[in-house]
């Protein structure tokens, strides 16, 4: 039997409920990002660029769009006779059926899948982060250190450390302690949720974990702590480049606009580290005579006749003459009508902002800065003429003309 050195397992099952209306009908990894990508493009592209061509994607929440998006894996060069990308939903066995109970259980339920490739290592990834990372380097370090588990860590500002899972390390990089959201963090090394395991070890601990009825079957809460307490060799792998968790509306908005920030290094056009995506067939973008576009990302299929500043337009967005879009993200097929203004907002797929409607507010214009935040218009909704949507509102149904929210 042919051996595959490393199989990647991508946890894409979470609902991402903090993204609210954006993940009502799609799984979080399928959320659009950066003008023509989906969040999942990043781990998938990282895999193929790192030479990992066998990837299992674990799904259970609203997988239809994600399944179709992944398809045969062609856009990421992951359609292979041996290996390639496989979507792994939960399933029924001859004795009973289970949804995935936790991250570790999801892997446990797919042991058969992993064993078919007879791997030395298993790489655990999640579908919630925007970053470019060479997993091959991490696997190399894992091998060279003779580790049982290697965890990618990122330095975070000390004051934010208590929001993360923190790894406390010895000088040689070995981890002696893991604290989940510690009140008094001892270090600022946050786990990125990216693990390399030696497969034999992982299999042992997954089986142990499964037989413990009290476990919540989660990597961070159960598997990593029990490996630590059994003194397995755990190493930290340091990562210093751009990394962003896009778990909240504000962080998703920020991560998008980071692409417009010349100080932030996230080059999506690097020929040595392409980020691949499945793109629809759309004509070139047309920028009309009346348009004024600055500091923005715009993609094919868009037509722009209004003003666009510091914003990201996905495919087939239509900005009418006299419309204005600032500091916003406009997802595929949305239309901003004449006289409408969209600021500090995310407008989801195919939404329509009618004439003279206003969506979102600049922080400096808000009465209560404490309550300020990015506004979100759900997919396919219509905001009526002259309606006003204030800051920090999540719109989940059509808004009548003139209404204020």
């Amino acid at each position, binding site marked *: 039997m042919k051996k595959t050195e490393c199989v990647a397992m991508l946890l894409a099952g979470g609902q991402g409920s903090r993204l609210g209306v954006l993940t009502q009908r799609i799984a979080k990894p399928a959320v659009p990002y950066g003008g023509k990508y989906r969040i999942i493009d990043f781990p998938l592209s990282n895999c193929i660029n790192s030479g990992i061509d066998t990837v299992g994607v674990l799904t259970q929440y609203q997988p239809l769009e994600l399944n179709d998006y992944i398809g045969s894996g062609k856009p990421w060069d992951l359609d292979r006779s041996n290996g390639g990308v496989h979507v792994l939903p939960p399933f029924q066995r001859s004795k009973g059926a289970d949804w995935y109970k936790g991250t570790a259980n999801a892997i446990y339920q797919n042991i058969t899948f992993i064993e078919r490739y007879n791997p030395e290592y298993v790489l655990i990834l999640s579908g919630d982060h925007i970053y470019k990372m060479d997993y091959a380097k991490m696997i190399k370090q894992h091998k060279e250190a003779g580790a049982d588990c290697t965890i990618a860590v990122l330095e975070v500002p000390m004051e934010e450390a208590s929001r993360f899972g923190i790894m406390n390390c010895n000088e040689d990089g070995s981890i002696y302690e893991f604290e989940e959201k510690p009140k008094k963090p001892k270090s600022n090394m946050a786990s990125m949720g990216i693990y390399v395991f030696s497969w034999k070890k992982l299999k042992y601990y997954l089986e142990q974990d499964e037989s413990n009825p009290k476990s919540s079957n989660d990597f961070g809460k159960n598997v990593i702590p029990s490996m630590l307490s059994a003194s397995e060799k755990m190493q930290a792998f340091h990562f210093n480049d751009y990394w962003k968790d896009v778990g909240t509306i504000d962080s998703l908005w920020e991560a998008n606009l980071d692409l417009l920030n010349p100080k932030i290094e996230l080059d999506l*056009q690097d020929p040595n580290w392409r980020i691949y995506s499945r793109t629809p067939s*759309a*004509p070139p*973008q047309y920028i009309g005579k009346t348009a004024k576009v600055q*500091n923005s*990302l715009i993609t094919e299929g868009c037509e722009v006749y209004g003003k666009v500043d510091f914003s990201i*337009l996905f495919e087939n967005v239509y900005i009418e003459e006299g419309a204005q879009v600032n500091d916003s993200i406009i997802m595929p097929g949305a239309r901003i009508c004449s006289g409408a203004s969209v600021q500090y907002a995310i407008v989801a797929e195919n939404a329509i902002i009618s004439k003279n409607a206003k969506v979102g507010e600049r922080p400096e214009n808000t009465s209560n800065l404490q309550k300020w935040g990015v506004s979100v218009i759900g997919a396919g909704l219509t905001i009526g003429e002259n309606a006003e949507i204030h800051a920090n509102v999540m719109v989940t149904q059509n808004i009548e003309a003139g209404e204020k929210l």
Partner: protein
Amino acid sequence: MINNLVLGIIFPNVHDDLLSEMTANRSMGSVPFGGRYRLIDFSLSNLVNAGISKVGVIAKSNYQSLMDHLSSGKPWDLDRKKGGLFILPPYGNGEARVYTGHIDALQGAMNFINNSTEQYVVMCDANVVSNFDMEAMIDSHIKTGADVTIAYKRGKLPKNHRDIMSFQFDENSRVTEILLSNKIEKDCDFSLDITIIERNMLIHLIEEASSRNQTNMVRDIFQPNVKNLKIYGWEVKNFAAVMDSTKSYVNVTEELLKNPTARKQLFTSERPVLTKTRDDMPTKYGLSCDVSDSLIADGCIIEGTVKSSVLFRGVRVSAGAIVENCIVMQDCIIGKNAHINHVTTDKNVVINEGTSMCGAPSYPVFIKKGTNV
């Protein structure tokens, strides 16, 4: 269902000489057009959008870039087990030689045509840009009982094209006369070189003509047989243009910028024009940029001024640069404070910092692939 009823054939090389500057290292079919396409994409998409699932491309020379572009046919959903895309280059078998006209091209592909089982054949030249409902044309061909149906456009004749047919019709759209004069000044009904014919009749006509060593389909088959064959016209009312010179290539592009209806008809979402993707990021508009009235593909970085122009994928317009009335093909770099006007640059051209190049509306300048200016 059209599927399995109609075979598509494209001639990517037959009019290479008309765009000689752009076809020095590529076939007509792989000439870039419209910001993100190659000319062959329009013929291929028309065929595929009409439900045709088997297409032969009879190549002659300079077709390596065409093969790279078409590869397995996946973007057109033509990577099929049954049917799909067939590239038929010269020396592929005993018959195929480097051809000169449609007749010997078809003769060289006779194995392919004979082994197909479809009842009809649609043949397209690659220098026509249009997006129309070819399924309706096929239906009409079957309904009228025509021997041959040829798509035509009403308008000014493309004059550089020596072999372009213009038609006279009777009241039923049957062709009564075929003219090959390029002196006609007023609007006429000229051929778009998109022809439907029964496969068996095509085989018969080609064998007849080859046995007489004839090579020119228009002069040797259609014109002499206008009375014997029931030739019908089918008017394309949508935007359609025949590229017959570098200047007409530029004019057609300008038309797309000026005329929103033309743009809408060519780029309708009902029948998308399909092409190979390139994994570019969205185009980045810089802080100081000034862009208007332009068609722009993905992967560009624009920090300067772009007006009434078409930018292909991966073009970089540096700060202070001005691009007006230009067609800038893939991966060109327009340096700082450079200024180009009425210029068409082929792929990978670099216009250096501060350089100025200026054509005239009646005489656009063309810059060859890979040149550093």
